[in-house]
């Protein structure tokens, strides 16, 4: 069965509160797709609507082209990995994995065989008889994945499954998850607030804020070609400059800001007179030599050495600093506090976007 | 409702609703409502049903107040006295239990440590697994005219003649206090246990005398427990039947005994229902008073 997942103008309300507003997208069969956003942005609500724990207030969810309205979670070709894993504490590891088969009436021997195969897949071959409470955090994680895979879902839904793990294990599990997905070849829909997870694992990402899907695209797309102020500020670090569009030149726009006239790519086709935000990533900035374009005259506040790179903080608009980062190539100059500095960036590395909410740091 | 069915599935939802309906409607609400209705009826023979006497009446309640119409006495002194005595004695038993249990509850909750406290709790519970009737019986052995206490006092030369503790109701009050003591200890213990011992230390540090620590720190904290314990003990004492039957003197009646008589020898269920309603009202008034005085909710009392 083809297992593309479509959200067709889906809106979900809880009383007065709109949790998800007009979500509209298609996730391809076999894709690793992430919903990325801060907590409370509606991403978990979308996941629960796909898995069947919630019905959309408006619009529909389609899996493999079939409208899922009225189909309960136990009848959908999806399996969900819960944030807290929700393993059954009173069953052995193998019984946990075989639960989905048990409730489908699969015989005991067959169940045991499938459980053993999956235990091998997650490298816990000899631990099937253990109690869940005897496993480490990472092992529980893998058992949860195996339990979900046992029912051979067409779509695996993952609700921030790594958030409870420590950093090292989290990074290890990212690689492992991606490898498992490629091995089993089914659609993974992944929910996270951690952009590192989303960027490293996903084929495509939907960035969400306040119930609205802001942008859908590959990791590179959302990072390099952010379409809204929120995406630009939430995915990676970015320096915003507030101003007004004063003119357009080809695919660029000119914006008057507190630091003078700056030029960036007019990706949203803004017109002169409109308020805008111009975003430049820290790594796109450098010290200006000669008469480069997009020069910013500022003052060094302080600098931070972070090993492979080096960050310089400059006085920006209001309370917000401008951050510039440079790779450590071995010959970095030192900057003193209060020193005046001229920095610049290339127009093709800057984005001019409509004013909008930015993500909190 | 749709959410409820969606969440639990049709079969389980049906079970949940049927079970709760049966309990709430058939076992709690309707029987109480019917008893209330019944208390306003004449006691009828089957052939009188539907007849001229099958109407609402206050006569059952009037009987409690004034006795049989045409009696010499103005009021039904016998029953009213029993009623008042039941209430006052129950309040007395409640206060006695509180006074007895508070130090123990405080000691186990705040002073005793780990295993010791655990063993004490176990010891507290043990006597209450013994049947209520047998516990009352034990008090009969203790307080009877040939009982242990009389024998002891006589041997010591304090008494010449045995005291009839049963007739003097001493056995009854002691037995009631004993019967429901656990229901005072546990709410008190639970409430005091949740108090951070540092608060007591802090108060002591500030130079509070011990009684003030209890009055100002421990008791206010334990309010829900006190309310809960007092309510339970009062209710059970006022509603007790076994202990008064066994330990009450021949002349002393408990209000529940009169109710019992209406149902048994008296054979007037309607009259008995009216008396039961009066008892229920008295209990209700007590609970509401406690809730008001202690400013606690019903949820905190019945846990």
């Amino acid at each position: 069965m083809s297992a593309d997942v479509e959200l067709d103008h889906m809106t979900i309300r809880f009383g007065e509160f709109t949790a998800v507003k007009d979500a509209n997208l298609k996730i391809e069969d076999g894709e690793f797709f992430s919903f990325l956003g801060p907590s409370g942005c509606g991403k978990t609500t979308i996941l629960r609507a796909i898995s069947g724990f919630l019905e959309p207030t408006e619009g529909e969810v389609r899996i493999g082209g079939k409208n899922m309205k009225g189909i309960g979670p136990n009848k959908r070709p999806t399996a969900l990995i819960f944030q807290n894993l929700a393993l059954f504490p009173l069953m052995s590891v193998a019984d946990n994995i075989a639960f989905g088969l048990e409730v489908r009436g699969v015989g005991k021997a067959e169940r045991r065989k499938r459980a053993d195969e999956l235990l091998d897949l997650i490298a816990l071959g000899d631990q099937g008889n253990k109690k869940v409470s005897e496993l480490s955090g990472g092992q529980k994680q893998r058992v949860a994945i195996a339990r979900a895979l046992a029912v051979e879902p067409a779509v695996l839904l993952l609700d921030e499954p790594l958030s409870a793990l420590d950093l090292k294990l989290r990074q290890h599990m990212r690689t492992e998850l991606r490898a498992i997905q490629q091995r089993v070849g089914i659609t993974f829909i992944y929910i996270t607030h951690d952009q590192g997870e989303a960027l490293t694992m996903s084929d495509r990402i939907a960035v969400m804020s306040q119930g609205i899907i802001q942008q859908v695209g590959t990791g590179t797309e959302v990072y390099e070609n952010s379409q809204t102020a929120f995406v630009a500020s939430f995915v990676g670090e970015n320096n915003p400059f507030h101003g007004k569009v004063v003119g357009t030149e080809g695919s660029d726009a000119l914006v008057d800001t507190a630091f003078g006239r700056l030029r960036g790519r007019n990706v949203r086709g803004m017109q002169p007179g409109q308020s805008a935000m111009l975003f430049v990533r820290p790594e796109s900035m450098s010290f200006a030599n000669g008469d480069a374009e997009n020069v910013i005259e500022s003052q060094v506040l302080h600098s931070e050495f972070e090993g492979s790179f080096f960050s310089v903080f400059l006085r920006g608009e209001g309370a917000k600093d401008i951050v510039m980062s440079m790779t450590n190539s071995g010959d970095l100059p030192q900057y003193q506090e209060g020193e005046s500095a001229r920095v610049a960036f290339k127009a093709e590395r800057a984005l001019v976007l409509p004013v909008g909410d930015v993500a909190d740091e | 409702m749709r959410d409820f069915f969606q969440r639990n599935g049709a079969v389980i939802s049906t079970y949940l609703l049927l079970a709760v309906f049966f309990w709430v409607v058939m076992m709690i609400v309707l029987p109480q409502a019917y008893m209330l209705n019944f208390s306003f009826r004449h006691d009828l023979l089957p052939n009188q049903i539907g007849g001229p006497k099958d109407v609402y009446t206050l006569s059952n309640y009037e009987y409690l107040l004034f006795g049989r119409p045409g009696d010499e006495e103005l009021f039904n002194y016998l029953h009213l006295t029993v009623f008042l005595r039941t209430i006052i004695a129950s309040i007395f038993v409640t206060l006695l239990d509180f006074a007895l249990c508070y130090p123990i509850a405080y000691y186990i909750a705040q002073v005793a440590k780990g295993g010791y406290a655990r063993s004490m709790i176990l010891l507290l519970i043990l006597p209450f697994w013994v049947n209520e009737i047998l516990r009352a019986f034990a008090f009969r052995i203790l307080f009877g005219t040939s009982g242990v206490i009389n024998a002891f006092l006589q041997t010591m030369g304090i008494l010449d003649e045995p005291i009839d503790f049963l007739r003097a109701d001493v056995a009854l009050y002691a037995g009631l206090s004993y019967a429901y003591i656990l229901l005072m200890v546990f709410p008190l213990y639970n409430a005091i246990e949740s108090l951070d011992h540092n608060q007591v230390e802090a108060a002591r540090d500030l130079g509070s005398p011990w009684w003030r620590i209890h009055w100002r720190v421990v008791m206010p904290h334990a309010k829900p427990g006190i309310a809960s314990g007092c309510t339970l003990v009062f209710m059970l004492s006022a509603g007790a039947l076994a202990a008064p039957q066994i330990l009450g003197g021949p002349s002393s009646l408990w209000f529940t005994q009169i109710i019992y008589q209406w149902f048994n020898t008296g054979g007037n269920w309607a009259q008995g229902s009216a008396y039961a309603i009066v008892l229920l009202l008295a209990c209700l008034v007590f609970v509401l008073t406690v809730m008001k005085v202690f400013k606690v909710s019903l949820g905190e009392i019945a846990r």
Partner: protein
Amino acid sequence: MSSQGIQKLMVSFYILLFFLFLFAPLFMMGAAAFNDVEFPQVVPWEGFTLRWFPSLFEDDLMIEGFVNSIWIGIGVMALSVPIGLAAAIVMTQVHKRLQTVYYTVVVSPVLMPGVILGISTLVFWDKLGTFMEAEYESFYYSGMFLTIVGQSTFISAYTMLVFLARLQRFDRTQEEAALDLGATHVQVFWKVLIPFLRPAIFSAMGLAFLTSFENYNTTVFTIQAESTLTTVLAGKVRMGTQPDLAALAVLIIAVTLIGALAIEIAQRREQRREWAAKAAAAKAEREAEAIAAAAE
């Protein structure tokens, strides 16, 4: 002696008195069971005897009451455990605004004198029986049935409270996980919820049975022509007294002690099991770390 020493001594003395108050009556009764006199008394001591124990089993009335009590206890378990469970589950799902009203109604039987529950059950179900034209000789009109219903009215509230306490620790996502894996609602109930509640089910059953077994106030109204152990006992105690009652008490106390010890041991064993699992998890965690460290 310091004033603190005196205070400590007084506290100890009080505790001693308190427990004396709790246990002395029972000890006296226990002693009376072995005293060779026709009247239950400890003094004067006429010599040790065991004859009151066999005489217990010759009392047909008491045996009949005992058997009835067992059946009623089983009936009450069968009624109040499912009701309490359902009521507790509904409590966790009922709308916040309704919750207080619902709680007040279902907990009210606990706060009501037992005699009132007995009376209301008697008058209502008697009327209902007339209405439904139940046979006068049928089980419906036997005191047993009414007693089961009457006792269950408040015992269901006890079992509900037991289930509520356990349900508060239930992780609802387990139900969702099971559903998501394809289980039907009925399967979720039997395979996830019931196993989780198993300890509470046993506690509730035990509580229901024991409460029923020793109930008097409600039973005395609903039992009518039949009898239970408590009604027989009450009758005997009122009539005048025989030492075999003390013997019965000794038996009950012995059973109770054994039961209490068994529960205590079971609890400790359960705790040890939990500790073992925790230790194993910690070990697995350490191993995982070691493997991760080795991989780097």
